[in-house]
């Protein structure tokens, strides 16, 4: 693989993009760009990247990257994508893709029209256990999906949370779906592959539970969101929760044959199986089965750690590897555009319910 990568947007998440892209053999990060020169410079200096720019067009022209990673706030994604595909770049993009669904459609259309490829950083879905869950589902072990529960926790006192709490002008506050819009991709993109309906029933409620920052402008951020989704044969609960501890990230798929529980933080995937033993014996067995599953998962994780395959952003490296391969081989991108569009459409409906006064 011989790919030149450039990054536009030198905030916190750009560090992960540089680190994970560089781990892939043959990939070189050739330049970074940010409107703020100090930010472009600091990223280039810290990672010894040869060039930094404050103008994306200049970077694309001077460094001729094959792939542009867009890690700016979503307000700029559509314009940057159009600019980059015109310059011959494929696009790897941070979520959320754009402010509104229409922009996501326009963005994908621009990529397709330019015959380029796009992937969005849905990295948890490319963790080893998440890929294994999809293999189980595809092979019929779970049966048909009856119900999905996707849960994502958030820490408003954490590194990312504090940044937006302290700054009333933070770009997250200007999103139509505010804090939720920055996080719901990761909740919904785990549901969408199992959902059998492009236009499901949606009921969303949001509320504030946090004590606030003392700052009137940021202390009113809604920080809890619950969504009920009902497709033709499959239903789902999507939960965003900023107050429960530990800050979890889980996915439970209830199938007609078995149920799978994936814990993204613990990196475990366990099956809850239909019992064949009768009566009390059938109730005695499950804890031992689940304990065995956890033990095996733990041992596999130890093996991955020993092989240096247990990084925080391992899923991102896998996704990037798949994306770069699809560019080289001119095959389908690792995330179907239809899935990206369905996530975006669901988000727009949810935000219309929880922030009805906001008109993007």
């Amino acid at each position, binding site marked *: 693989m011989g790919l030149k990568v450039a990054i536009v947007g*030198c*905030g*916190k998440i*750009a*560090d992960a993009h540089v*680190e994970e892209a560089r*781990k892939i053999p043959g990939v070189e990060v050739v330049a970074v760009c940010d409107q*703020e020169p*100090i*930010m472009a410079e*600091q*990223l280039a*200096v*810290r990672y*010894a990247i040869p060039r930094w720019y404050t103008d994306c067009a200049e970077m694309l022209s001077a460094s001729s990257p094959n792939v542009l990673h867009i890690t700016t706030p979503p307000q700029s994604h559509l314009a940057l994508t159009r600019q980059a595909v015109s310059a011959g770049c494929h696009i790897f993009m941070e979520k959320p893709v754009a402010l509104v669904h229409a922009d996501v459609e326009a963005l994908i259309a621009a990529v397709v029209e330019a015959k380029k490829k796009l992937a969005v950083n849905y990295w948890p879905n490319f963790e080893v256990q998440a890929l294994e869950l999809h293999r189980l589902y595809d092979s019929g072990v779970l049966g048909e999906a009856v119900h999905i529960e996707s849960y994502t926790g958030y820490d408003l006192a954490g*590194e990312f949370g*504090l*940044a937006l709490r*302290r*700054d*009333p*002008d933070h770009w997250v506050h200007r999103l139509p779906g505010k804090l939720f819009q920055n996080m719901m991709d990761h909740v919904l993109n785990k549901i969408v592959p199992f959902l059998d309906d492009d236009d499901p029933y949606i009921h969303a409620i949001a509320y504030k539970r946090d004590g606030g*920052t*003392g*700052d009137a402008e940021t202390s009113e951020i809604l920080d809890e969101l619950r969504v009920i989704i009902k497709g033709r044969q499959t239903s789902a609960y999507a939960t965003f929760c900023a107050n429960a501890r530990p800050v979890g990230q889980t996915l439970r798929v209830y199938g007609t044959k078995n149920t799978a529980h994936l814990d993204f933080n613990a990196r475990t995937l366990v099956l809850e199986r239909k019992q064949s033993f009768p009566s009390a014996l059938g109730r005695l067995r499950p804890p031992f089965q689940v304990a065995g599953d956890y033990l095996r998962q733990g041992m596999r994780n130890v093996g991955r*750690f020993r092989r*240096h395959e*247990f*990084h925080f952003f391992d899923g991102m490296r896998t996704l990037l590897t798949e994306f770069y391969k699809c560019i080289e081989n001119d095959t389908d991108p690792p995330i179907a555009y239809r899935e990206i569009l369905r996530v975006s459409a669901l988000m727009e409906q949810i935000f219309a319910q929880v922030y009805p006064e906001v008109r993007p």
Partner: protein
Amino acid sequence: MKILVTGAGGFLGVNVVERLLAHGHSNIRCFLRDKSKAARVEGLAAANPGCKLEICCGNLKSKADCARAVADAEIVIHLAAGLKGAPAELFVDSVVTARNLLEALGARTEPPIVETRVVLVSSFGVYGVVGLGRGARVDESTPLEQFPERRDPYSHSKLRQEQLVREYQQKLGFELVVLRPGVIYGPGGGAFSNRVGIQVGPVFVHMGGGNLLPLSYVANCAEAIVVAATHPEAAGQVYNVHDDEMPTASGYLQAYKKHVKKLRSVRLPYFATRFLAGRLEGYHRRSQGQLPAIITRYKAAAAWGGNTFSNAKLRGLGWRPLVSTQDGMMRTFEYLRSQPESK
């Protein structure tokens, strides 16, 4: 004379405002980001009814807020900076904000920029101490760090901030005074500097050993800032800030254990720290960052290499500590003892 203090609601900022009042300055603009931190400044305003103590809330990321902050100020004491968080966040909070503040100063017409003094509170972290050798003295003539990217992100961002302020001083022509405090401590601050050691799970790993700890009690540091900010001879100068008496890192740790709470600690001699740092660095490289390189040999040499320090230049300006190290430590320990986490 109007004096602006950025970061006025913070640990050091409140003390600086207090010392300015004590020195008879009565026209002070306190700029702070977080309204919830205004209580102590409001208390100072209530206690000094004859003084004009203006509380100005805003964010130095905003150019409009910066313009409001610097309006009419003849002395700008710039304390606001990022202390923790991701590297990008530190650069925004320390370097971008400093640039915005200086741009606002440059755009202002009155008072003239050449009659304005900027007082930057920098850090000991900007010195390039790695090659100096054990026991070498760090003073204002010590060269600056040549490889900031090999240091911790805080030191890197503070060095870039200082460089940027110097670039703007050349461009705009204001008077610049730079203070580089050592370890600022006191009630309201933290318990340990990395120079003493770091908490790893339930154990405190003590790497500082017999190294001198360049402590600066928060009121003494604030006094130094005010003295330098207002002294005519300080223009264009740099001052290291630490107290006269400096305990060793192990002395500080023992006193903490005696006066605050018991603490499980393991002493790691410097050679062992360097050895482990080398192993961790190697593992970090081989594993492509599976465990973070929190400690590298370079960082270990910077933090625990063992230097001596001098505050002679600051004393020459007339600064004297208000609180002895013994008293400062006792006050700090009393505060730490009262915190819920110490019980």
